[in-house]
C-alpha cells in the first residue's frame, strides 16, 4: 500500500504523528527480526552441534551395547519412528479423508458444524492428555506397544488431515461437481472420480504436514511405547519401539557429553526432516491452491 502523497510540508503536530508512526514501524520490524533471529539461532546451534556427530554409522547402526555413549547409531529410533508414524498415517489418512468428505459434501450444515467443532477441539487437546487417554484405554491392561503409540498419533493426525482435506474439497469448483451430477453420474461416483482426484494434491500435502507434526511428537509416546523398547532395530508394531524424539529426550538427560552429542545429531536429523517436509508441503499447498482458485 502506498502512503498518500501529502503536498503539505510536515511540521509541528503532523511531524510528531509521523514520528510515532515511524517508531511503531521500527518496533514491528524489530519484532519480525527477533522472530527470524530466534529461528536462525535455534537452527544454527542445532546444525552446528548436530552435523559434526553425523556419519554413515549414525544412520545404519544401533545403540552400542550396554548404553555405551561412544559409537553406535540411531537406526533403531529411525525404524521405530517410521513404524509408529507409518501405522498412524495408515489409520488417520482414510479416516481423515472420509470425515472431510462427509463434512464438505454430504452432511447437513448443522451436523457439519458439530463435526468441525469436534475436530478443532480435538486438535486443541494437549498431546500428553491423548497419551494418557490411550494409556488408560489400552496400555494399562495390555502393556506398551508401538501400536498404542500409533493410535495416539492417529488421533492427533485425523483433525489435521480432515481440516486440510475439507479446505481443498471446498476449493474444487462447483462447476465440476455440477457437471458430473448433471450427466447423471451418481453422487458417490462423482465424489471418487471427480472431486477427490482434483483435491488429491491438497490431501497429500495436508497428510505430509500431519506426518511432519506426528514425527516430532514425544509426549503422547512416553506412556505408550518407551519402556523396555529395545535398542535394536525392530519393526514389530506389537513391541514397544523407540522413536527419534524419545531418543533425544533420553540422551539429553545424560550428563555424558558423548550422549549430548548424540542428542544433537538426532535432533538435527529430525529437525531437517520436519522442516524440509513441512516447508515443501506448504509450498506445494500454496501452488495447488492457486491452481484450483485459478
Amino acid at each position: 500500500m502506498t502512503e498518500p502523497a501529502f503536498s503539505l510540508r510536515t511540521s509541528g503536530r503532523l511531524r510528531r504523528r509521523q514520528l510515532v508512526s515511524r517508531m511503531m514501524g521500527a518496533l514491528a520490524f524489530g519484532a519480525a527480526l527477533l522472530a527470524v533471529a530466534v529461528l536462525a539461532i535455534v537452527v544454527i546451534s542445532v546444525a552446528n552441534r548436530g552435523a559434526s556427530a553425523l556419519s554413515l554409522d549414525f544412520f545404519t547402526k544401533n545403540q552400542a551395547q550396554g548404553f555405551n555413549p561412544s559409537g553406535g547409531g540411531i537406526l533403531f529410533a529411525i525404524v521405530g519412528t517410521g513404524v509408529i508414524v507409518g501405522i498412524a498415517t495408515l489409520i488417520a489418512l482414510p479416516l481423515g479423508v472420509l470425515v472431510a468428505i462427509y463434512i464438505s459434501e454430504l452432511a447437513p450444515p448443522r451436523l457439519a458444524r458439530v463435526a468441525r467443532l469436534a475436530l478443532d477441539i480435538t486438535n486443541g487437546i494437549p498431546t500428553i492428555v491423548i497419551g494418557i487417554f490411550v494409556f488408560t484405554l489400552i496400555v494399562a491392561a495390555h502393556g506398551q506397544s508401538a501400536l498404542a503409540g500409533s493410535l495416539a498419533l492417529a488421533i492427533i493426525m485425523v483433525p489435521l488431515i480432515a481440516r486440510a482435506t475439507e479446505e481443498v474439497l471446498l476449493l474444487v469448483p462447483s462447476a465440476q461437481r455440477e457437471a458430473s451430477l448433471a450427466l447423471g453420474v451418481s453422487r458417490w461416483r462423482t465424489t471418487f472420480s471427480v472431486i477427490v482426484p482434483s483435491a488429491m494434491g491438497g490431501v497429500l500435502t495436508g497428510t505430509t504436514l500431519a506426518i511432519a507434526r506426528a514425527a516430532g511428537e514425544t509426549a503422547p509416546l512416553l506412556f505408550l511405547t518407551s519402556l523396555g523398547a529395545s535398542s535394536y532395530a525392530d519393526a514389530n508394531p506389537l513391541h514397544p519401539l523407540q522413536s527419534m524424539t524419545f531418543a533425544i529426550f533420553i540422551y539429553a538427560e545424560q550428563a555424558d557429553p558423548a550422549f549430548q552429542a548424540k542428542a544433537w545429531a538426532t535432533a538435527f536429523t529430525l529437525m531437517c526432516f520436519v522442516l524440509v517436509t513441512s516447508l515443501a508441503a506448504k509450498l506445494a499447498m500454496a501452488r495447488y491452491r492457486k491452481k484450483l482458485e485459478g
Partner: protein
Amino acid sequence: MESSHADKNAVFRRTRGRLDRIGDPALKAVTFAAAAFAVTVLGLITYELVRGSRLAFHRFGLGFLTSQAWDTIHNQFGALSLIFGTVVTAVLAIVIATPLAIAIALFLTELAPKPVRALLGALVEMLAAIPSVVLGLWGILVLGPFVQNQLEPFLGSTLGFLPFFRGPHYTSGILTAVLILTIMVVPIVASVTRELFATVPVELREGALALGATRWEMVRGVLLPAARPGILAAVALGFGRAVGEAIAVSMVIGSQVGIHWSLFAFGDTLASRIAGQYEGASTNLQISSLVYLAAILLVISLAVNIGAQLLIRPIDRRPRRQRIALDRALETQGMSAD
C-alpha cells in the same frame, strides 16, 4: 490412457445400476460413521480420564486441587503447585508473546516489501514446526546457560528489589520455561493475526489513510479494532498451546513442586509433571493421580478452546462474506482485491 478410460467407462456402464443403488447410501453411511467416530473420540477421552482418575478422586476429592503435595513415599498427591506453575508460565508466555506476535503480523501485512512477505511468513511459521523435544534440548543446553549467566544476573541487578527476580541462578527454572513457551506461542498467534489483518477490507484502510491518518493511526483506528475479537481468539489458542506443552517444559523447568514467586526458582506444570513420571508409577493411586492431572488439563484446554471457537466463529463468517462480496464488486470493474 485412452483405452483404459474406455475400459473404465464400459465397466461403469455395466455395473452402474447395481452399484449406484448401494453406492450412495454406502458412501453416506461410511463417511458418517467416520465423522461420528471423530466426534465420539472426544467423549471417549473424557470418559476414560474420568474412569482412570476415579481412585484418586475418591481418595483426595476436590482437595486434590488445593494440596501442594507430591509425595510418592507417603502416597499424598495434589495439584495446586502444578496448577500454579501452569498458569504462571502460560500467562507470562502469552503476555510476552502477544505484543510481539501482533507486531510481527503488522510488519508482515503492512510494512514488509511484497516479495519478502511470503518468505518471512513462512520463516515465522517454521518456528512453530520445530519439534518441542528439539526446542527443549536447545533450551537446556543453549538457552539455559544464557539465562543463568547473563539474563538472570542482569534481571537480578536491575529488578532485584521485586520478589520475582531473587534467588540463585540456574540453567533451568520458571524463567527458562517461560522463554521456551514464548518461542512456541509467538508463531501461532502471529500467523492467525496475520490472516485476520488480511481480511480487513482495503477501503477501510485506504479510507483512513486518505483522511490523513498516519500509518500507525490507521493501524490503531482501523486494523486493530476490526481484528480485536480474532486476536483474542488467537491469544486463547496460544494460551491453550502453552498450557498443554509437556516435553519442552519438563526438560527446562526443573520439575519441583512448591509455590515460588521468584522466576529464577524451579517449578513444574500439570503437563510436564505427567511427562516426568513416564518411567512408571509405584502405586495405582499415583497412576490415578496422574490421570487426574490429565483430566484437569483436559478441562482447562476444553474451556480455552471452546472459548476461542466461540470468539472465532461469528467473525470467521463475517469478514469472509465481506471479502467475497468485495471481490465480486471489484471483479466487475476489472480489478482484483489482492
